[in-house]
């Protein structure tokens, strides 16, 4: 009886760890690019978008990472997810109302006893190792309600300056939600890889109309057929919300081009 239980446990462990073979067909050279969500993912003890989380993600074998991007009042691009700094740090206020100087010493409040700090994208790309070998999905959070041309130009110029300074045109994919921001950036630099983040139908229409590279959709909000439809139009698909092993596998089976995952080690094991 004991032996039978032991055998069942071993078989279960073996089946959950087993690497599967996938026949991937997509627009990314039939390969899925493995991206961490904000580095090591939302459940990791490194806070999202910290240097520690992003460097750790790259060091364990991910192809790259998604990074949340916001712009401060004085035009500095920083890696931070929430609209308000109060949410995760010891600083306060909305990012776009603060200057970089005022928040550069802000630290994440969790986990207790840690001292991880907010990061500008320039600091990140200046200090990450081998950036040219990795892929970065910049998830731009344009929380600032300003729709003026001054704001749009400032945001686009900050992105362009960053990408050119670090020679990352081929490594960076820009994920945008606001149509005005997309149009402004696309007009300035048609060579940049721009993805629109919205629902599948709207995203496909916008990507088609503005000749964008791709769309970003939650993995549970897109079907295999819809991915095939996007691919048939020459539009790539990136998915997020892959926060479980089953969602990682679902993303692979849907033949998407990029997966932003919270279960990074599992996806690396599945695909490498």
């Amino acid at each position, binding site marked *: 009886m004991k032996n039978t239980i032991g055998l069942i446990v071993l078989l279960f462990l073996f089946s959950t760890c087993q690497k599967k073979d996938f026949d991937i067909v997509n627009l990314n050279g039939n390969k899925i690019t493995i991206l961490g969500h904000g580095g090591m993912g939302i459940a990791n003890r490194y806070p999202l978008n910290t240097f520690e989380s992003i*460097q*750790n993600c790259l060091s364990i074998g991910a192809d790259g990472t998604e990074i949340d991007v916001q712009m401060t009042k004085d035009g500095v691009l920083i890696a931070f997810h929430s609209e308000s700094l109060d949410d995760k740090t010891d600083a306060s206020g909305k990012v776009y109302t603060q200057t970089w100087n005022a928040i550069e010493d802000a630290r994440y409040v969790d986990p207790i006893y840690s001292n991880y700090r907010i990061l500008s994208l320039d600091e990140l790309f200046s200090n990450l190792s081998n950036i040219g070998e990795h892929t970065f999905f910049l998830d731009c959070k344009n929380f600032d309600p300003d729709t003026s041309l001054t704001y749009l130009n400032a945001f686009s110029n900050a992105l362009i300056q960053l990408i050119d300074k670090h020679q990352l045109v081929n490594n960076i994919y820009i994920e945008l939600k606001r149509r005005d921001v997309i149009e402004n950036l696309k007009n300035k630099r048609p060579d940049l890889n721009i993805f629109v983040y919205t629902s599948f139908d709207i995203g496909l229409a916008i990507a088609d109309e503005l000749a964008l590279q791709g769309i970003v959709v939650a993995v549970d909000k897109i079907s295999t057929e819809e991915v095939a439809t996007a691919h048939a139009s020459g539009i790539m698909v990136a998915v997020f919300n892959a926060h479980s092993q089953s969602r990682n596998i679902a993303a692979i089976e849907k033949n998407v081009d990029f997966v932003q995952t919270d279960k990074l080690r599992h996806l690396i094991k599945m695909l490498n």
Partner: protein
Amino acid sequence: MKYIFIFIVVLISSLNNQAISQSDSTNTARNAVYLEAGGLATYGSINYERLLPLKNKWNLALRIGFGSYRLKDFNDQFNPDLIIPIAIYGLYGKQHKVEFGFGQAITNIVRANPSNFQVERESKLSANFTIGYRYQNVAGGLFIRIAYSPIIEFYKNYRHWGGVSVGYGF
């Protein structure tokens, strides 16, 4: 005669109570090891505690533990975070005890240096306080405790916190 009898009964009874109290404070099991979920090392720790009997139902307990957030640093090299909680508790009760006390957490956490982003270890001290309940048999065996243990992180930030422990007394 009646009063003498009452006096003798009260005296015997009182001596008997004192004897019981003294044997309560002299625990036969003065050591305990336990795992704490949450608590002073924030996510969990393994701990050793030494009990020092005082008068009546009072005991003093000295604790030292070890916890960690991760064993590898952000370059995926073995380089563990170290969290060492130490504390002193006053305990009152027989098997069911109320505890209260204070202590320190000595932390040595790996992070990226804010200037050059290289791996560095940073040591800091944080204070903690505890009020809780524990079940601890005088003869040893099962040890259970639950405690509210707020942390004053880096002597600056007050953080509500708590923990649950299970261990063994011997």
